[in-house]
């Protein structure tokens, strides 16, 4: 035979990779079994994957509602040795089960961090300086009729309390310092390399901050950590920025604190039950609302493609993963 066989592409399970260029880049390199285009129910799809002549050793999944990688899932596809999550969060992956079975896990690392930090800073400026609200005023033709727009408040000297000083929190603090903000933070342990003032609890952080920023992951410990008590500690001149996950804040308490003027404003990119946003917020001029888009730029999408393929290539060639979560 003179013709050579094309290389056998390793089988890859795929859940919820929508973007066309990304999808195409993966299909070029792997034999992709795509759940969402299969049209089958989950257990049928997994059974068929497990029965494939080259059953999948790797899985690419987006976060959130795309798939839950739990014990039942792992039982259904015993060939799986590596899970790559394209989302920032890992709450849809049972890390304990993966560790028990020796399944490696990697995530998108820091591909989103810069854009999320930039969006958070943009929202903070918007809330303090009333950019979106002033924009509405102009677009409604009110400037010639009502004269000067009400004053905002200065960024310089404001104490910004960041919950979670990971990649995103660190990038935010570097940016905000250039605006003259003072950085305070809370995290599980104080960070040696950082000179910002540490607070052991979110309540204490809120009581000495003018702006409270949620920049941590969602976990059992952080669910509703920003509660009524914390909002009261933040106080009537305080504002909240959430670019973490909706459930980190008790949303009902936040809405009533805003409605009653017990806090001064909020910038929210995430909500407890997306895409539902509490309707009470729509009539408020002191809040800025975005549709969970802080991470998504053309640049982070391109970085994500590189990170996904980089980690998959490392796994399939037996090299160390680029951004491993497990093994630790």
């Amino acid at each position, binding site marked *: 035979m003179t013709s050579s066989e094309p290389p056998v592409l390793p089988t890859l399970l795929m859940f919820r990779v*929508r973007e066309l260029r990304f999808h195409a880049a993966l299909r070029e390199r792997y034999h992709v079994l795509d759940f969402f285009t299969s049209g089958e129910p989950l257990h049928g799809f997994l059974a068929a994957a497990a029965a494939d002549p080259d059953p999948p050793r790797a899985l690419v999944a987006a976060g*959130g*509602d795309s798939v839950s990688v739990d014990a039942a899932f792992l039982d259904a596809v015993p060939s799986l040795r590596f899970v790559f999550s394209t989302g920032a969060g890992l709450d849809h992956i049972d890390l304990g089960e993966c560790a028990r079975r020796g399944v490696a896990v990697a995530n998108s690392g820091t591909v989103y961090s*810069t*854009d999320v*930090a*930039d*969006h958070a*800073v*943009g*929202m903070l*400026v*918007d809330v303090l*300086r*009333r*950019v*979106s609200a*002033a*924009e*509405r*005023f*102009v*677009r409604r*033709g009110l*400037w*010639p009729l009502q*004269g*000067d*727009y009400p*004053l*905002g*408040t*200065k*960024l*310089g000297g404001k104490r910004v309390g960041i919950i979670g000083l990971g990649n995103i929190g660190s990038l935010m603090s*570097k*940016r905000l*310092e*250039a*605006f*003259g903000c003072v950085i305070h933070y809370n995290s599980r342990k104080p960070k040696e390399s950082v000179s910002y003032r540490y607070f052991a609890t979110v309540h204490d952080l809120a009581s000495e901050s003018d702006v409270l920023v949620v920049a941590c992951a969602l976990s059992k410990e952080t669910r509703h950590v920003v509660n009524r008590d914390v909002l009261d500690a933040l106080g009537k001149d305080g504002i909240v920025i959430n670019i973490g996950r909706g459930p980190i804040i008790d949303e009902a308490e936040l809405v009533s604190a805003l409605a009653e003027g017990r806090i001064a404003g909020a910038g929210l990119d995430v909500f407890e039950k*997306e*895409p539902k*946003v509490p309707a009470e917020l*729509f009539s408020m001029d002191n809040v*800025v*609302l*975005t*549709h*969970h*888009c802080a991470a*998504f*730029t*053309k*640049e*982070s*999408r391109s970085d994500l493609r590189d990170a996904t393929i980089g980690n998959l290539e490392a796994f399939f060639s037996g090299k160390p993963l680029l951004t491993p979560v497990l093994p630790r």
Partner: protein
Amino acid sequence: MESLGVLLLYPVNAYLEQELDRRCRLYRFWESPREEFLRAHAGAVRAVVGNANYGADAALIDALPALEIVASFSVGIDRVDLAKCRERGIRVTNTPDVLTDDVADLAVGLAIAVLRRIPQADRYVRAGLWKSRGDYTLTTRFSGKRVGIIGLGRIGQAVARRVEAFDCPVNYHQRTEQKSVYPNYTYYPTVVELASNSDVLVVACPLNASTRHIVSREVMETLGPKGVLINVGRGPHVDEPEMVAALADGRLGGAGLDVFEDEPNVPEALLGMDNVVLVPHVGSGTYETRKAMADLVLGNLEAHVLSKPLLTPVV
């Protein structure tokens, strides 16, 4: 300074007005028709307080024979006839420094707002259009964009320091290069070359005869379909009709505007555009800064009355 007759041209700030009323002899220019006011009080006015939009022009100065000082509640004094003031020996003061941070904060905030489409996202959510998760269009990253600043004065430098924290390379244009002072910033001898090498162009220079329409059609076309113009200077820095056309055709990618050629009137066409962020001259619009500006106006008037050196003289 109870005997100082002060003419306030416009209700610029409640605290300032209250203090002028308490400490001086205050006349409010908007309370009666101009000619009637001048007939009755022109001779008593020794000081004029205006702002960015209301200044002491030649006609007003000529009508006030006892005028000694113009203390503007603004840093830009393009509405004050400086030549006439020099001729008459009238002092002029402004409010530099105290508003530098606010204006720079807004400039950067506008750039992020335009590139990341924050007000647009807010409109989308408020209109009830967010129907499913993952429903977003990709915007473009702000960090790392090349920022070109026209005028590296106080405000320009403050903008530069902020964007450096976002890893943005800083380019600038002004009358002279100052390489030893700004070794990390790249100088361009013309605004067109600055625009050609920048993704975001920020206007931060004073308005005068040589900077009027400094952002021309050619500059905007060079900045291009992905370029963003940020104007926190004065409306007349930009050729406004050309800008509106360039934005409409996509020859200019976007704009964040705090100032307009004919405030408070904003070109109708801009009001329907999605690639612009429009705010009503709020550059110095914070409680803290407006109080500091008011105190500076009062401090200058007091120094004048006590024959002490003025705090922030322009003339």
